[in-house]
């Protein structure tokens, strides 16, 4: 199951109710800029990730000027926003959905949320996008599995004067008014950086990636690999293995990797399912002292991090992303200006900062 690059994470951010969630999104952007400073000074490994991403994905809360040409504010009291995401079955997307629903409830909009069964289902996703268009939505939120392939359909949206808000990962096209995204490559690089620190810049590191052909899988693999190649040449990276984000398969992969490389120092897992699998695999292998760097967030990973089995993980802010999509859509409908990108940021969390409110706010179970 390739679903979800930032896949599988969860949902019941229900704990922090919509109120907190709202402030979360505020936090995010803030967190992004101020921790930018932080990390410039010293690559402090608490909420540093956000800064890199800020750097990477261009000025965050910058120029709020994108407006639909010839925009007429909607008169609808309950506008309809059709959201087509990259995935569905995994927790991460369910969390995005959650955020979107919360925001929609606040802003008084109705939404629909669809996504293909797996992140390699490019065509099914495009069929969904087209179908969404026929429902004459007032705005569209779209996370492209393959931005090039979706260009023609986005054009149709443009012709029909339907504002498009891209999210999760960039759509390389000027049609979307803004992109509520996080930079997977930068996030993966941040993970690599922490892995390097954990293993003292040398040793063997295995990679359990959730998808070999989807954008998110490729970015989270290459971001990690490239950073290591540049900054930690002594770290030996193994041939990446792909577990489809399926915990069981990833666990079996992990055990095979450990069996084949008794000297392994660390294992990187590129999404929730992979991380759970790697943790399980390491536990079952009975090996101690393997540094696990995971991705995304869930009860299982938090438990593993607290118990010390897993060193830490990069989390993005799916709930925040969901909220941003709806918020931005509403702005667009009111013809308010939007920035090129809304960086929803990403965060490194480990034993030390897992309970820090800023982090706790973006973690979800």
């Amino acid at each position, binding site marked *: 199951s*390739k679903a979800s690059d930032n896949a599988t994470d969860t949902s019941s951010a229900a704990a922090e109710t919509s109120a907190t969630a709202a402030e979360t999104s505020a936090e995010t952007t803030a967190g992004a800029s101020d921790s930018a400073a932080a990390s410039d000074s010293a690559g402090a490994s608490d909420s540093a990730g956000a800064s890199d991403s800020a750097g990477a994905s261009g000025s965050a809360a910058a120029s709020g000027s994108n407006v639909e040409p010839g925009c007429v504010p909607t008169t609808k009291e309950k506008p309809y926003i059709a959201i087509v995401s990259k995935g*569905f079955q995994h927790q991460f997307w369910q969390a995005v959905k959650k955020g979107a629903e919360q925001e929609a409830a606040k802003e008084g909009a109705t939404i*629909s*949320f*669809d*996504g293909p*069964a*797996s992140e*390699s*289902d*490019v*065509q*099914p996703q*495009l*069929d*969904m996008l*087209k*179908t*969404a268009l*026929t*429902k*004459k939505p007032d705005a569209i939120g779209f996370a492209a599995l*393959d931005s*090039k*392939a979706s260009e*023609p359909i986005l054009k149709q949206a443009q012709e029909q004067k339907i504002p498009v808000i891209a999210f999760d990962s960039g759509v390389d096209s000027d049609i979307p008014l803004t992109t509520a995204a996080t930079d997977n490559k930068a996030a993966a690089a941040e993970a690599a950086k922490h892995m390097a620190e954990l293993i003292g810049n040398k040793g063997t590191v295995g990679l359990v990636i959730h998808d*070999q*052909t*989807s954008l998110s*899988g*490729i970015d989270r693999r*290459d971001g990690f690999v490239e950073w290591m190649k540049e900054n930690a040449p002594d770290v030996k990276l193994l041939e990446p293995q792909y577990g489809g984000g399926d915990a069981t398969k990833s666990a079996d992969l992990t055990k095979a990797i450990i069996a084949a490389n008794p000297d392994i120092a660390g294992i990187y897992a590129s999404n929730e399912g992979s991380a759970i699998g790697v943790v399980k695999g390491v536990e079952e292998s009975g090996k101690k002292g393997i540094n696990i760097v995971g991705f995304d967030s869930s009860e299982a990973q938090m438990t593993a991090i607290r118990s010390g089995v897993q060193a830490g993980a990069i989390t993005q802010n799916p709930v925040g992303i969901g909220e941003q999509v709806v918020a931005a859509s509403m702005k667009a409908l009111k013809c308010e200006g939007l920035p090129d990108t809304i960086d929803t940021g990403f965060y490194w969390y480990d034993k030390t900062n897992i309970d820090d409110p800023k982090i706790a706010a973006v973690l979800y179970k």
Partner: protein
Amino acid sequence: MSTAEVPVAARRGMSDNVRMRLQQLAAFAGLIVITAFFAVASDHFFNYDNLVNNILVSTVQIGILALGTTFVIITGGIDLSIGFGIALTGMMAGTFLITWDLPLGLGLLLTLVVGGLIGLVNGFNISILGMPPFIATLAMMLVCQGLPIVISDNGASIYFDDLPAFQDLSGGTLIPNFPNAVLIFLVCAVIAWFLLNRTLFGRYTFAIGSNEEATALSGINVKKWKIIVYTVAGVFIGIAGIISAARIGASPSAGKGMELQAIAAVVIGGTSLAGGKGTIVGTVIGALIIGVLNNGLQVMGVPQEWQYVILGVVILIAVYIDMVRKKSATAAG
């Protein structure tokens, strides 16, 4: 005595045709009912744009795969390699047309050849080596899953933006407002119908599925014809691969899981996995039923988790209705 039978014969012949018609009608009825339902349930569903540009276009690839697979299934076989076959043939199209920059016609031809080869190898393993079709094509499915990534640059897709002529194979409109992809699907369906109902190839396809040993003992070279059947199915994979690539670019994971949907379309269309029975019309209807359901449920805004459940239940009902009618048709006529 034979004279005495003649009138009977006449009657019989009729009721027989009637039954045939009734069967297809039944499957067709299922499609109509579902369509009608969505038309009533949602005001965004029943309009030319949604029916043609969304439903039909989204049905094309599964439909074309289903057409080729119909022959295989009528012989009593099965082909699991069709799904990822799209990935392989698509990536090959990309390699031919973009990487090697061959002329369009040649590139297309070679792509169809690649498809044919996939089928040929399947046919050889099944017919000559005598492998179970399930295993032979499952193995080919794995091969078709791996090779595209090998070909690709680290799993990246190949795009055809510099080759609009190629992209037009899917998006263009020879007939105004009628995407070429759909046109190609229809043409394929007509060809398939012709092959199945008017040629030796079709007759032997049925004969093999209905009793392979008897067919062989009737002096028909069963091995040869089985290989041809799988090869034809392979060519259809090639066509589907080309359309997929023309539409969204060649991706190493295109067509994933489509084998199940295509086979489902065939079986929903009344073709028996036991072999010996099947119609092209049925297969087309089967593919449309799947397409309409997918689209309709989303247009209605059914939560996705429920879409799965409902899809399952509706398929059951559709097939059941179909069967009941057949039964009554057979019982009566």
